C-alpha cells in the first residue's frame, strides 16, 4: 500500500533542472551592423566595402558559448571560433568579449572582459533589470518559454524568453533576474540574439565553475569612464561600440 502511494507522489511532481550546461548560439546580422557604420562622411569609401562583404560573406555571423549552472551560480564562457579574422572582427557588437561568473544569491558578478589589447576583470553587482513579463510563449531547446521585455543602459531594448522548468534566475552574458533560466535573448535594435541549442541536465564539476585569473580589476563605473575617455573623439560609431562593450 505504502509503496504504491509513494509512486503516485513521484508522478505528480514535475522535474526541475537546477544544475547542468546550456549551449547557446549568438547570431549577429553583419549586413545591418556594417550598414550602421556608414555615414555621409564615409559613404563613398564604405559603401563598396559593404557591397563586397555582402557578395562574399553570409548575412549572419554565428558564434557559440556555454552556460554552466549549479548551486544558484552561473558560469558563462564563449567557445573560440574557428573562423578567420575579417576586417570587422573589432566590432564588439558581433563578438564575444566576456567570460562571466554570477552569484545569484549575493547578486554579484565577476566579468573577464577583452577590450582591444587589455583584459579587464570587472567586479560589481549584477545589473538590475526591470522586466515586464508578457503572455507570449515559445519553445526553445525543448522547453516552454515565456517572453519578458526590458530596457537596459537607458536605451537598449531587450526581449528575453525564460523557462520556469529551470528555476535559476540566470541567463547568457549579463542578463538575469527572471523567475527562470533565459534560453532566448534578443536585442532587436542592436541586430544580435542568443538562442539555446542544447540543454543538458547533469551534475557540474567544481572545476567547470572556476573563473580565469588574468585581468586588471575595475568596477563597472571605472570601466565606463575609461572607455568614455578613450572613445570621445571617435565619432558617431563610438556609441555602438560603447554599448557593446558595457552590455
Amino acid at each position, binding site marked *: 500500500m505504502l509503496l504504491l502511494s509513494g509512486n503516485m507522489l513521484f508522478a505528480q511532481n514535475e522535474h526541475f533542472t537546477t544544475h547542468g550546461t546550456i549551449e547557446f548560439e549568438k547570431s549577429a546580422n553583419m549586413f545591418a551592423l556594417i550598414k550602421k557604420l*556608414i555615414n*555621409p562622411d564615409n*559613404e*563613398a569609401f564604405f*559603401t563598396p566595402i559593404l557591397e563586397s562583404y555582402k557578395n562574399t560573406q553570409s548575412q549572419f555571423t554565428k558564434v557559440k558559448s556555454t552556460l554552466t549552472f549549479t548551486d544558484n551560480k552561473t558560469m558563462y564562457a564563449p567557445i573560440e571560433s*574557428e573562423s*578567420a*579574422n575579417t576586417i570587422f*572582427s*573589432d566590432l564588439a557588437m558581433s563578438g564575444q568579449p566576456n567570460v562571466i561568473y554570477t552569484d545569484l544569491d549575493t547578486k554579484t558578478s565577476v566579468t573577464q572582459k577583452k*577590450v*582591444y*589589447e*587589455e583584459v579587464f576583470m570587472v567586479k560589481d553587482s549584477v545589473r538590475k533589470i526591470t522586466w515586464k513579463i508578457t503572455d507570449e510563449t515559445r519553445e526553445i531547446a525543448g522547453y516552454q518559454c515565456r517572453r519578458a521585455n526590458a530596457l537596459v543602459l537607458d536605451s537598449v531594448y531587450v526581449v528575453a524568453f525564460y523557462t520556469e522548468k529551470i528555476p535559476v534566475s540566470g541567463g547568457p552574458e549579463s542578463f538575469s533576474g527572471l523567475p527562470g533560466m533565459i534560453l532566448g535573448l534578443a536585442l532587436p535594435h542592436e541586430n544580435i540574439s542568443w538562442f539555446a541549442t542544447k540543454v543538458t541536465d547533469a551534475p557540474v564539476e567544481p572545476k567547470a565553475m572556476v573563473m580565469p585569473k588574468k585581468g586588471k580589476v575595475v568596477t563597472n563605473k571605472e570601466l565606463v569612464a*575609461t572607455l568614455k*575617455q*578613450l572613445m*570621445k*573623439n571617435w*565619432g558617431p560609431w563610438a556609441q555602438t561600440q560603447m554599448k557593446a562593450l558595457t552590455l
Partner: protein
Amino acid sequence: MFTGSGGEDAIEGWSGQYNGQGIPLARTGGVHYDSKFNKDKESINANYKIGSLEVNGTNNTLSQNNLPTGTINTDADQKYDNYIFRQKLDATYQVKLDTTSNLKIMTDGTLKNSKANNSNVTKNTRGDGSALNDNTSNTTNNSNNQIFNASAFYTKKFKKKGRTISVLVSESYNEGDSKGFLKSDANFYDEKAKLDSTQHIDQYKTNKTKSNIITSNITYTEPLSKASSLIFNYSIGVDNGTSDRKSFNPSSPGNYNVLVDSLSNNFKLNQLSNQVGAFYNFKKKKITVNFGTKVTAVNFNQVDEASNYEFKRNFVNWNPEVRFQYRPSQQKYFSVSYRGSPTQPTIDQIQPVAVNNNPLLIVVGNQALKPSFQNSFNINYNSYKVLSGMSFFVYGNYSFTSNPIVSNQVTNSAGKSTIQYINLATKDPSNFYLDANVGRKIGNTDLNIGLSGNVSGNNSYNLSNSALNFTKSITYTGGIQANEYIQKKFDFYAFFGPSYTLSGSSLQPNINSNGRGFNARGAFTVYLPGKFQLASDADYLYKAKTQTFDSDFHRTLVNASLSKTFLKEDNLKFTLAANDLLDQNKGFDRTVNANFIQQNTYTTIRRYFMFSVTWDFNSMGGPAVKK
C-alpha cells in the same frame, strides 16, 4: 645629354599627364549613369568624359657627367607648351546569371588629340670651363590616337565550398598617327674652344602605330581543407603591332619629300606569351602562408618590312612569391615576404629604331641582351594598442638585381655620346629601405607624440666610356612628431627632423654630393563659433650646399583657408583659400643617378587666392539614410 626630368620624347607625342611641373589649365566635364534592375541581378554603369589639358612652362637642368677622362658640365634650358584633348566613353554591365555565377562585361573607347611644342638650348662645357658643344632645337608634334578595350569576366562557385573558377577574355586596340617637325642647330668646339664643326637638322617626321592585344586567363581555386587551398592559373596573350616611322628632309624650303632611310623604318611585331601559375594558400587562426610561382614563356618576333629581316627572341620569366604573416589581433601583425621578378629588355634596348631628336646622344642596340632578375625581401611589424595609444611599426625592404641591364655611355672628345645597354654579370645593384616609428598618447590627454627614423640606400652600376662606375648613396632621416585631434574643436600635426645624404661615384672619387638637410611641416584646423573653420599648413625644406651644388636651398610653403558651413547638415560650404602665401614655391629638385649628378629648376604653380562654394546636395542619389 638626357632631356630633363618628366619629359617624354617630343616626337612620340605628349602623354597628357601633369606631373607637377609647368602651369596647367584643365577643363573637364562628364556624365555618369548607373542603375540596378531585375531584382538587383543586373547592373549597368556608364561614364562619358571630355576634357582638355594644357601645360606650359620652362625648365632648367644643371648636370655633371663623370667620365674617366674628366667631367662634362651641362646647362640645359627648355621651354614647352603641350596640349591634349580627350574624350572617353566607358560602360560596365554585370549580371548574376544564377546564385553561383556572375558575368561582368566592360568596354571603353577613347579619342585623343595632342599637340606639343618644345624648344631647347643646351650648352656643354668641359671641367675647365671651356666650351665643348651647344645645341638649339625646336620640336613640334601633332598626334591622334584611338583606343578601344573590351573584356568579359565570368566567375562560378561550385557546390564544394571554396571551389571556384573564373575566366577573363580581353581585347585592347590602340591606333596612333603622329606628325611633327625637328629643327636643330649644333656647334662643336675643339680643345682650344675654336669652332670645329656644325650640324643642322630640318626634318619632317611621321609615325603610324597600331597594336592589338588579346589576352585570356583562367583561374581555378581548389580547397584542400577548411584552412588551405590551391590556385592554378593559365593565361595566353597575343600581341600584334605595326610601327611605321619616317623622316623626310626638304628638297626645297617647305617641301619635305626626301626620305631619310637611316632614320625611317617599318616594323611588324608579334608577341605570344603563355603563362602557368600555381599558388598555395593557408590561413588558420593567426597564421597566413602563401607561396607559389608564375612561369611565362614569351616568343617575340619583329619583322623589318623593308628588308624582310626577322628578329626572333624567346624568354622564360619566373615570378616566385612567398609570404608569411602572423596576426594575433586586428591591431598587431608581423609579416615577411619574398618576391622575384624578371625584367625583360625593352625593344629600344635590343634593337632601337633610330631616333635623332638629340644629335648629341644616339642609342645603339644590343641583340644579346637577356632579362635581369630582381629579388625583393620585405619585413613588416606593426602594433597598435588602442587603450594606451601606443604604436610601433617597422618596415624594411631589401632588393638586389642579378644580371642587371646597365648602360654603357661612350662620349667622344667632341661631346657626342652613344649609349648601349649590356648585362653586367659580375655585379648586383641593390637598394634597401628601413623605416621605424614609435609613438604614444600622453597620459589621459589626447596628445600623441612619436619618434621616427629612416635609412635608405642605393648601390648602382653603369659603364662610362667602358669603365665600370659604382654610384652609392645613403640617406638618413630622423624626426619627432606630435598630433592631437579633438572632435569639432581643433586638431594639429607637427613634424620636424634632420636628414643627411652621402653620395658619390667611383669614377670621380674627389667629387661627391654629401649634404645635410632639414624638414619641418605642420598643419592645424580650428573650429570657431558661428560654424567657421580656420585651417593652415606649412612645409619648410632646407638643403645645405654640397661639393657639387654650391648654394644652399631654403623653401617655406604656407597655405591657409577660412571656411563657413551652412544648412543643418553642414553641406553648403564657402571657402576662402590661399596657396603658397609666402610665394616660395619655385620648383627645385636634386638627384644622383648613374654617373650624372643633376639639379633641376622648373616652372610650377605659385601663390594664388581662391574663393569656392561647395554644395553636397545628395551624396549618392536615392533616398536619404534614416539614422
